[in-house]
């Protein structure tokens, strides 16, 4: 057992089929409109407004609704109305499974209880570091911002796992790193599977398929994804009065036995569990 989404758990338990889950997810997608989609459906904004806002969101850590209000495209009252409608009409996966006939109300309650029990040990600690580094809010911001970029650049739902200290960096399909230097010194690393590398490549290249892309382009997109995250981290740190320069991203080669973390650094791994079952690992090596 690992960190799971409820639907995935039900499939693995044999309670529902993959097709049953797919039908329920499709129903959710039809019913659970994103804020921008809802605003467009209500005739408050245009497709062009959304595109502009999304482009701006890639470089600004601000929610879409707040951005639309900032740009004068929505009034605060309209935003509030949209958020209330979105919340009141949200269809959860359990309800979707009932509506598509995959589960009964009774079995949903039973399975939710057992799911909660199995997942309790994976309850996230938020973005709290397990030990203090002296700059905890800064590094916690790194973690939060990485999650934000997973949502905004990759458009993937995710669930943060528990942050743990590490002494070894384990191999993966690819690890991309950036050095953060200035008032603080750290190494920012993201570790991705082959599947996640392709997901990142599709998002960064704005392409539907990357199957025929050469390996060097696929690798480059992961480095650029790290660059985008670290650029945002440096920008946000700057707003908080912390000067932080970023050096160009590079690929980390990890031997099969793993790479020991350097002396004099506090080293942490922060798993971000993605909706498709994959995991993006964020590794921070923070100079003490």
């Amino acid at each position, binding site marked *: 057992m690992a960190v799971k989404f409820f639907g995935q758990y039900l499939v693995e338990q044999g309670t529902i089929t993959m097709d049953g889950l797919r039908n329920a997810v499709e129903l959710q997608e039809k019913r659970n409109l994103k804020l921008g989609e809802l605003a467009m459906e209500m005739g408050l904004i245009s497709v062009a407004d959304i595109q502009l806002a999304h482009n701006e969101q890639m470089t600004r850590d601000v929610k879409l609704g707040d951005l639309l209000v900032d740009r004068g495209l929505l009034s605060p009252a309209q935003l509030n109305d949209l958020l209330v409608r979105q919340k009141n009409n949200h269809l959860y996966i359990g309800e979707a499974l009932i509506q598509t006939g995959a589960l009964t109300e009774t079995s949903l309650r039973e399975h939710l209880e057992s799911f909660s029990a199995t997942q309790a040990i994976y309850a996230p600690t938020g973005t709290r570091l397990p030990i203090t580094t002296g700059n905890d809010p800064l590094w916690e911001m790194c973690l939060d911002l990485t999650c934000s970029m997973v949502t905004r650049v990759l458009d993937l739902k995710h669930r943060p796992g528990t942050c743990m200290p590490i002494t070894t960096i384990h191999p993966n399909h690819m690890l991309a790193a950036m050095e953060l230097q200035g008032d603080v010194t750290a190494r920012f690393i993201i570790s991705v599977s082959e599947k996640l590398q392709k997901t990142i490549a599709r998002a*960064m290249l704005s392409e539907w398929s990357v199957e025929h892309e050469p390996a060097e382009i696929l690798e480059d997109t992961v480095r650029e994804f790290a660059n985008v995250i670290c650029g945002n981290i440096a920008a946000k740190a700057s707003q908080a009065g912390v000067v932080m320069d970023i050096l160009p991203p590079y690929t980390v080669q990890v031997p099969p036995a793993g790479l020991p973390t350097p002396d004099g650094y506090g080293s942490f791994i922060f798993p971000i569990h993605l909706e498709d079952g994959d995991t993006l690992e964020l590794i921070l090596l923070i100079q003490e």
Partner: protein
Amino acid sequence: MTRVLVVDDSLSVARQLEKIISESGDFTCVGHAKNGAEAIRMNHTENPDIICMDMNMPGMDGLTALRTLSVMDKDVKVVMVTSLGGVGDKFTEALKLGAKNVISKPFGADDVLRILREL
């Protein structure tokens, strides 16, 4: 056609920029340099009207190249490309050195073309 030189160590970013520029109808891409030193050389050989240059590159970075270009060639217009989100010392320095604008990564075609057309 306005001639644009792309300068970025990232193959994927350079490819995206080249595609946006070549599909625009009013700009043409005259080449791709992978660092600041190559950019200075290609500015001499390709004589672009605009240089779209990454700020953060291995070897000679974008700011160092901009400093040189601003002295060597007063006509070329340089737009910096960065993931730094429009704040910070590098951004300020780029503007002081004469960069005409800054394109934030990741970018869309509309952002890039709007900035290039405003030059």
